[in-house]
């Protein structure tokens, strides 16, 4: 589903070069749930931005669903992002002036679906996260956990193959965080590949695989291989 080979990301100014990712190699299979951990500034978010086609890597190979993204123009990258990737962010990133319906509608607008198809998908997505009855509510009328659920509904509405979550529970209390995490696990069980960046090792342990990044490199040598993880809820996840 996602393959990175000797990927490098270098930020250059006229004075310094910063190597955000060095020889970063990672393969994520379809249906996997991978947690990416590491200290602040280690390159986790850079990895996620490149994975989500929000930034272009400097060197190396990156394929998503078999498509080599190197050299793709903005239109093609945007189309790929729209069709294959869903994002969930730490701070939810909902548009406050739009109600839940319109917030979830965002990726569908750029996909070019007709009105009926968009409506069906929006209602289905919001229903899936338990907010089907609140389409006309605005983000400010919801709790943090509910807002993150809306963000997840938005990410899922386009039926992406990969869900990229950047600290999805970072702004939530433990109860809400657990609920959001369970929702992400549920989504993964239904077949969506999930890559989640997190600081929280407890949350990371719930993934099938934990990739630890330090100084722009994967330091856990086992990280590239699938493994069986014992979850806190007693379930076993396997690749």
């Amino acid at each position: 589903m996602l393959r990175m080979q000797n990927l490098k990301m270098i930020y250059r100014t006229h004075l310094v070069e910063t190597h955000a990712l060095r020889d970063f190699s990672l393969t994520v299979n379809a249906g996997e749930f991978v947690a990416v951990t590491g200290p602040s500034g280690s390159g986790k978010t850079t990895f996620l931005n490149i994975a989500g086609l929000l930034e272009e890597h400097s060197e190396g190979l990156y394929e998503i669903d078999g498509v080599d993204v190197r050299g793709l123009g903005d239109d093609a990258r945007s189309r790929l992002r729209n069709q294959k990737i869903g994002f969930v962010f730490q701070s939810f990133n909902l548009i406050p002036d739009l109600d839940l319906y319109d917030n979830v509608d965002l990726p569908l607008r750029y996909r070019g679906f007709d009105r009926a198809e968009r409506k069906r998908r929006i209602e289905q997505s919001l229903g899936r996260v338990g907010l089907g009855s609140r389409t006309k509510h605005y983000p400010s009328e919801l709790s943090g956990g509910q807002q993150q659920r809306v963000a997840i509904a938005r990410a899922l509405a386009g039926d992406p193959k990969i869900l990229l979550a950047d600290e999805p529970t970072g702004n939530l209390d433990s109860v809400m965080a657990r609920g959001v995490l369970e929702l992400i696990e549920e989504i993964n069980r239904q077949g969506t590949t999930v890559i989640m960046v997190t600081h929280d090792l407890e949350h990371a342990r719930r993934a099938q695989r934990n990739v630890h990044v330090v100084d722009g490199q994967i330091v856990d040598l086992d990280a590239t291989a699938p493994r069986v993880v014992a979850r806190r809820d007693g379930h076993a996840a396997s690749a």
Partner: protein
Amino acid sequence: MILYYIRIAMLGLRKQPVLSALMVLAIGVGVATAMTALTVMVRLGADPIPQRSDRLFAMAVDNWDAERPWGDRNGGPLAPDQISYKDAVALLAAGKAERQAVMYRVSLTAQPEREDLRPFQASVRATSPDFFPMFDVPFAFGGGWSAADDTARARTVVLSKAMNERLFGGENSVGQRIRLSDEYYTISGVLAEWRPRMKFYDVTNGALNEPEMAYMPLSVAFEKELLSDGNNNCYESPGEGWASYLASECVWMQGWVELPDADAAATYNAFLANYVAEQKAAGRAFSRPQLTRAVPLREWLDLRGVVPDDMRLFTILGFAFLLVCLLNAGTLLLAKFLRRSGEIGLRRAVGASKRALFAQYLTESAVVGLLGALAGLLLTLGGLAGLRMLTPDFAGIARLDVQMLLSCVAIAVATSMLAGIYPAWRASNVAPAVQLKTN
């Protein structure tokens, strides 16, 4: 998508009403200033009689003193702006054109028979009979006078629509009489509404003034020794008395000919060249023979500077001000768009291309421009009304027609989109990753 973009634009405007109002106002004021000036300029410069202008030629006769030649403001050679009695009468009598009319403006006292009306000063154009068909002057009742009437010095008169309404309540007054400066004149015709954009046939005496209230035969004006109520230029004293005035080189009349095509114009100019030669032989100056010619109407208006230089400057300044307003609006748009960087980042993340975002923000600029156009339109109407009040000469031209109205909207939308290009480009190039992390 365009409807979606418009909806998002309206939401954006509602979200920041003060900023939005400032942008709309900036564009509106700029558009109004530019459009007020442009409207006056365009209407001043427009063809006042488009259906016949290619057939109408002014008689330019350079009878002026060789020592002190007539020139334009920059010293360029120019025939005098009017013609002398001698030349007017001679050229009229020659009858070499399909139609010809010579004329001048006089002022008479109208003395209404009705007791409820007080006497008033009436501007009257003394002219030859071709004036009416030549300039396509429309009649509501009756018609002009004949050449025979002119020769016979018939006391006949044509009234303007306004004059007829004032004296006869708009009824058909043909055949009735009016008293002008103690003499009775029989009404031969009453004009329908006739309000050319400018008094092109006499630009030396208030080109923007309304046409005269009445028209009378030239022969009668001469017989009554009526002096011109307009400009009169002499390079030497005309001497005492009416006869010596008529014999002088003073210029105070206007002359026009109708020439149907280029051949006719060439023939007429050849006639004028012969006329100049004759006059020189008779001892008159005519030191610059090339300036005596039939000048096409549009060229004549241009030569006479009917569009004042001040007006051109005002228009340039108006558009410069519009540019400043647009720069302001552009800056405000940029600030407004970049305040929504988080939203831009998010839209990029969910699949919006730079092109889609550019289109969205350009649409928002266009919506602002459209609202600016509406504001500008209202302010333009106000500006023109103010101009009409402050400068009565502009009463006839400081008006917005449909063409200018559409131009106003088009200019506002186009210019605000132009002002929105850079902000929209900046917005579409916001680095999404940074915004998503910091939002």
